[in-house]
């Protein structure tokens, strides 16, 4: 299973390396969202700084949804749903590989969004260890849900507009928890972040397991 996961992960990374769809489209979109928040809040840096955790995570969520859609599109192009069924490959391995790939891209998106938010909102990202730890766990959680839901939403033709509707409510606890944990980190009260980190960890673990269980059913059904 791990062998399959690594193979799928490597394959997705090298496809992205070739096509650079994420780099050319999703990363700029992330930047656009961050800039739009600046416009929306009338460029008041105090306001922006206060709202930074929430704004940051909203931007990351939309960008991650796009990354998930891209990961699904790669398989769609190759008609891989059928391919993997035909080759009788462990679906949970494929699932893990896809989650790993999306999560890897997600780290890049998060880094870009964090840097641009820090610069544009004129905010200092104190406690980087806590912030990045939260980012990694939240990233895995969203990817774990997103990969299953993207497969669910693929009918006879792809329905991209459906994906955010399905994903965002399900991952809303992650948004809440990650934003609150970041708030605690930025306010230099890291101890307050712990319950939120717990929720994030629980969410990610639960949905990784759920995903591994149902991904095969979704592929076959």
């Amino acid at each position, binding site marked *: 299973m791990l062998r399959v996961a690594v193979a799928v992960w490597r394959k997705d990374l090298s496809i992205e390396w070739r096509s650079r769809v994420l780099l050319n489209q999703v990363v700029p979109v992330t930047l656009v969202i961050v800039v739009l928040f600046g416009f929306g809040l009338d460029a008041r840096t105090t306001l922006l700084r206060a709202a930074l955790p929430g704004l940051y995570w909203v931007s990351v969520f939309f960008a991650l949804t796009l990354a998930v859609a891209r990961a699904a599109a790669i398989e769609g192009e190759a008609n891989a749903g059928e391919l993997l069924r035909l080759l009788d490959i462990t679906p949970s391995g494929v699932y893990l590989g896809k989650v790993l790939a999306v999560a890897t891209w997600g780290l890049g998106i998060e880094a870009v969004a964090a840097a641009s938010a820090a610069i544009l909102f004129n905010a200092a990202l104190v406690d980087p260890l806590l912030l990045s730890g939260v980012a990694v766990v939240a990233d895995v959680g969203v990817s774990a*849900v997103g990969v*299953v*839901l993207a497969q*669910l*939403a693929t*009918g*006879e*033709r792809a*329905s991209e507009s*459906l994906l955010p*509707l*399905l994903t*965002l*409510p*399900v991952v*809303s*606890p992650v948004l*809440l*928890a990650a934003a*609150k944990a970041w708030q605690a980190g930025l306010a230099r009260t890291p101890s*307050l972040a712990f*319950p*939120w980190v717990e*929720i994030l960890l*629980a*969410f990610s673990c*639960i*949905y990784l397991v*759920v995903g591994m269980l*149902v991904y095969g*059913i*979704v592929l*076959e*059904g």
Partner: protein
Amino acid sequence: MRSTQLRRLRRAIGAAALVGVAATAWLGLVVTPPAEFFGNLVRLLYVHPSMAWVAFLAFGVTTLASALYLWRRTRRPAWDLLAAASAEVGVVFTGLTLVTGSIWGRPTWGVWWTWDALLTATAVLFLLYLGYLALRRVPMSEERRGVRSAVWALIAFVDVPIINQSVYWWRTLHQRPSLSIGPTNAVEVHGIMAVALAVSFVSFTLTWVWMVWVRFDLARRQRALEQLELAHAIAERLESVEAGS
């Protein structure tokens, strides 16, 4: 014979639901007194909790039917149709719950909406099941739709406790303990009020049963019609084979 009996039962339930809702309106609007503190607003109490109850009941049934559909040994198209029917009615009642809650909130709290934990969780639940209905509209084969919407229903179900926990912490940690959670906590229920409340619970539940039943029956008929058309198409195709030989 059995089907006519069932139809009669269904009609009886529908009639009982109608009478019950009318009785709830009468009890709630005319018979019961206004409350000391909340005045006439208290009358919302006779509909709001029972609507919320029906909403949760509906999603519970959707989850259960979806699980039964997913499990291969109990897989029947009927479970899928039941899950869908119940989710549709559930979305309506969740919407009504949110609306009546909002009407309650405006005079009591001065706002149409407050980010109270229970309210927020209900709103997210509403969105989750809107997603369920949207997913069912994506064109795919019957079985695939059944499997996928069932998987989605289970994912949503797993999400509910996590959402509850996180919004509860969100609204209570480091915040003044917010306004009372729902109307029920603030009012003392007694006498005729309890009767009105009980009638409303029963009649709304009956309404749910009736609506789901009608919707389920309609879906089943649609399915039967489609299969009939299929049988015709097969027959035609076979005829053309015979003619070709």
